[in-house]
């Protein structure tokens, strides 16, 4: 799963959001590192909808402009949980090994 996709699903895990809300949220989750652009966002949203991982929650018209709110589907929740577990397992392994290395280095000094 691409990082942008992972972050979009994460943004929606807290509840339904519209496009601009997802962009702001992804920026916040990533500590300002990932700034989604509209083209990238909608390529991903279109794909996620086609794969059944997200769905349209509701639509509103604000200032004459269409606002569509997206939410995770049960399949999307499962997919995000699986991916998060996988990333966590990798991160844990990496940190454990780094700690072993650091301890060894500390021991030798």
């Amino acid at each position, binding site marked *: 799963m691409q990082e942008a996709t992972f972050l979009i699903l994460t943004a929606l895990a807290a509840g339904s959001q519209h*496009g*601009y809300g997802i962009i702001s949220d992804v920026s916040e989750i990533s500590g300002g590192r990932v700034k989604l652009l509209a*083209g990238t966002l909608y*390529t991903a949203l*279109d794909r996620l909808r*086609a794969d059944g991982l997200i769905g349209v929650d509701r639509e509103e018209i604000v200032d004459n*402009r*269409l606002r*569509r709110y997206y939410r995770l589907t049960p399949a999307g929740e499962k997919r995000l949980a699986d991916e998060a577990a996988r990333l966590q397992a990798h991160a844990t392994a990496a940190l454990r090994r780094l700690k072993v290395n650091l301890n060894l280095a500390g021991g030798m000094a």
Partner: protein
Amino acid sequence: MNEPELHGVNDSASLERGYRRLLACYPKAFRRENGEEILAVLMACAPDGQTRPSLEASIDLLKGAARQRLRPRAGQPRSVFAAVRLMWAGAAAQLALLITIIVTAGAVKAAVLHADPAAVPAAMTHITVDKAGAPIVIAMWLALAWTINRGRDAARFGFASFFLLITMSMILSMAQGGAVYAPADFIAGAVEWSFTLAAVVLIFLPASNRYYRREAPVLV
């Protein structure tokens, strides 16, 4: 309304026009589903006073549009999508062939003159016909790719005729000694012909038949 506010309205109208032009690059179905919403996001992301789409956002939209256009359509079998990609490759191959013909024309003429001076006018006519015909063939490749992609059954038979045409042109070129006098042109032509053959096989596979024999073709 005072002046600065009027400016703001003009700025945003001009920005919106710019974004609409970029969104026009997306396929119609995608635009109908997401266009207004993307526009809303683009406008919300733009700082006040911006009058033209930013370079970053423009490149991102063009990339998105290209990705949408290069994706298989809903319900389209892999075989049909592979054939469509081969047809784009075929148009590129024909362009390469045209360039090869232009670049090697002198060498071909010299080779024919050396081997059989009487055959020079016929060879030159053949080269002229190939040069003049190439843009038409490129247009045919693209038009067929477009209609094949949209699931029009008639397009399959159009493409089969096109395949026969290319095959006949290959045979004619062989009969005139093209492989001997113009090896580069001949190889480029053979590559293009192999694309036609592969595409014909793909669009008449059983999996493809189902796509073309649907009740009503899903267009747009």
